[in-house]
């Protein structure tokens, strides 16, 4: 399948609705080429699930979108704004990339909450210090968000005293606090004990239902099938197959995807 093929609904009307557009993205770590030309478009309201085996480049792709990894080449457009890049792929306009990052909220596999700050402090940190929202306003909003993810009574608790599921829900509250245009989930449930996965997926499911734009790297196939409206299967740094979940999961065309799905089922 053509790796440069963009997601289906890229007609004229939706062009300005493109939340994220990745074109021919390459990424190498030394000799190892992890991404070999990936293109992907997510429109406003899309929930794109990115699946693939370990080492397929799915996390790397996600991390290239907000330049936590420096792409080797390619073009990345966020909300219609092309990210300015040096020849080596690093962002050339520091202010631009910092501004763009505030619109992309990332939820990490290892939560990455700031351990020396309480949950409330974690949630207000970026709004107050980066986005310059008045502190009192940020605190009110943070309480609402913590309430929403079921941690209303844990605002003054430090992350280390919480379970992984609670920490990940707090990390989602932190992401929501910046009012992001796109949320990037990097294997949000992979570090969790099985019995804690459900509570995090419930929160993500609610966010999908309210029409948030999300890119979701996940190993939870059932969940991907349920919440995503577009599924991308990566194999060795290329998009092997993509389409609506019913197609990708129900009627996989490539042998590699068939094999992958049977191995994780």
């Amino acid at each position: 399948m053509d790796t440069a093929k963009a997601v289906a609904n890229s007609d004229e009307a939706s062009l300005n609705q493109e939340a994220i557009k990745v074109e021919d993205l390459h990424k190498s770590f030394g000799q190892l080429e992890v991404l070999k030309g990936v293109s992907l478009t997510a429109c406003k309201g899309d929930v794109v699930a990115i699946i693939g085996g370990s080492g397929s480049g799915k996390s790397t792709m996600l991390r290239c979108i907000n330049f936590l990894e420096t792409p080797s080449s390619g073009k990345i457009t966020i909300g219609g704004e092309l990210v300015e890049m040096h020849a080596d792929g690093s962002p050339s306009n520091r202010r631009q990339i910092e501004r763009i990052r505030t619109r992309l909220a990332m939820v990490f596999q290892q939560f990455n909450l700031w351990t020396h700050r309480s949950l409330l402090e974690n949630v207000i940190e970026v709004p107050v210090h980066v986005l310059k929202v008045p502190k009192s306003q940020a605190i009110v909003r943070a309480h609402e968000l913590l309430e929403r993810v079921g941690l209303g009574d844990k605002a003054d608790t430090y992350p280390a005293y919480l379970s992984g599921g609670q920490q990940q829900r707090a990390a989602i509250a932190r992401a929501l606090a910046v009012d992001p245009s796109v949320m990037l989930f990097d294997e949000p449930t992979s570090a969790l004990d099985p019995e804690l996965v459900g509570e995090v997926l419930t929160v993500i499911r609610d966010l999908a239902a309210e029409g948030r734009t999300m890119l979701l790297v996940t190993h939870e196939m059932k969940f991907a099938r349920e919440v995503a409206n577009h599924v991308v299967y990566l194999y060795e740094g290329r998009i092997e197959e993509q389409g609506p979940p019913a197609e990708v999961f129900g009627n996989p065309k490539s042998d590699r995807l068939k094999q992958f799905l049977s191995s994780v089922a």
Partner: protein
Amino acid sequence: MTGLLDSLGLAQSAELLSLSPPGWGRNLLRGLSHSLQIAFGAYALGLVIGLFGAYGKLYGGKVTRDLLAIYTTVIRAVPELVLILILYYVGSDIINKISAAMGGGRVEINGVAAGIWVLGIVQGAYATEILRGAIQAVPLGQIEAAKSYGMPAIMTMRRVTIPAMMSFAVPGLANLWLIATKDTALLAVVGFNELTLETRQAASSTRAYFTFFLAAGFLYLMVTLFSGVIFARIEKWARRGQPSLTGAGR
């Protein structure tokens, strides 16, 4: 009280240590005050050098890293006493040469300022290594999270890296402070009247060596104990949010 001191044969010592003449107590306290001023100043200077040094070693270019490697290696390799003699005499020599070149006369070197510079440069080398290790111990994910939310580098350092590294740095920095208080005694060799030199003068004038050096030792001990209390508080603050190991430490 007087009776008790008499019966223990300490009346003479008490008189020697009293704050008003002929007692030497005031001299000792003045020495202590000088020692603490130098220790504070040198420690603060050392922390500033250390923070820049640590960041330079971690994120600087090749030249910066090489220069810092030379700095920390040389300073930590040479005995403090030798460094103090070198830095003090070389430093005052340079200042005088500059003054002469600009047509000025001999410059009187301020003892406290000189002590702060000399010990601060020594402290900076150790602080560089302590802070470098502490910064490296901060989980990368926390710095990455800050970056991914659009925090500029300086804000990340101020809001995330430095607070997160504090719990790793405080024990080492507490040691460094105690070393700073005691290294001030080395400045006696360049004739600076800190506690040790004041003590020696009092002792040799009165021949009561035991009394005075015991008294000086007591003052150093008090400084250490008081510092211990302060650093315990700082450590508790720095470790906020981290569950303590049950039974280990207080």
